[in-house]
């Protein structure tokens, strides 16, 4: 299969990943449990049901957040 590398910004840091890649596949490659995170793609917050269809491309900005301890 033809794959190439895309440069993205993930949580503020530059990252090269094989792609274009779906959000679901990106999370899998990072070993992140999809049920416990929220994803913002180019400033648009994604519904979990959209993870499979949303493609991350060259230059995209992705934020992946989860719950941590807080008051």
């Amino acid at each position, binding site marked *: 299969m033809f794959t190439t590398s895309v440069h993205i910004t993930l*949580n503020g840091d530059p990252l090269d990943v094989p792609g274009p890649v779906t959000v679901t596949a990106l999370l899998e490659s990072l070993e992140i449990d999809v049920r416990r995170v*929220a994803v913002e793609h180019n400033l648009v917050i994604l519904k979990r049901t959209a993870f499979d269809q949303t493609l991350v491309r060259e230059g995209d900005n992705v934020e992946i*957040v989860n*719950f941590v*301890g807080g008051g």
Partner: protein
Amino acid sequence: MGISASDQLVIAGKTFQSRLIIGTGKYPSNAVMAKAHEASGADMVTVAVRRVNISDRTKESLLDYIDTSKMFLLPNTAGCYSADEAVRTARLGREAGLSNWVKLEVIGDEKTLFPDNEQLVEATRILVREGFVVLPYTTDDPIVCRKLEDAGAAAVMPLGAPIGSGLGIQNPNNLRIIREFARVPVIVDAGVGTASDAAFAMELGADAVLMNTAIAGAQDPVAMAESMRYAVRAGRLAYLAGRIPRKMYATASSPVEGLVGR
């Protein structure tokens, strides 16, 4: 069965068994946190929304230590300094937790962590329009609380003292006025240092108390969590029971007649 049996906290139509709401930050370990949660009897805990640490390979999650079948998660917007940031964080929290509840914080100053009430009211308005159940953390100002309520807040959460200060209730009179004005639950959020502070807040008429550092920072967080459970309960019962008026002079408790030899 006394007056206490049916006394439950209701926020936006949702019933909670405990009037103590606690945080999940700053515990010595997640295991200690889980024990403290259990000891507190609380059924709602706050959580923060932050970037996933991509390089952390342990993959230990806070949620591994919270039984979400018993504990309601309340995402916060801690660390946000504008309405825009807080709204963005609240939306992310909704997707992460699949609940539309938010503890709304818009901070105005790093040193005091006092809220920026202007931005807070604005963010409340926006989030309520989007269907959020908004619980805003505010200063102990009755007028701001009224504005938040008018903006659609499901509860108001005035501070007792600055976050993490442990100073106790600094302006009890304001809290009483807020309680008298408000038609939504009043949750005293921040400032509690020890059990008597929590009891005092409840005696003033608060519907609930929210705390993090007082428990997580105690030398024995589990024991402090248990003490807070009883303090909140005791304070609530005292409030419902109706305290006696304060008087300048003594009133004898024993009969003044029938004294031997008189």
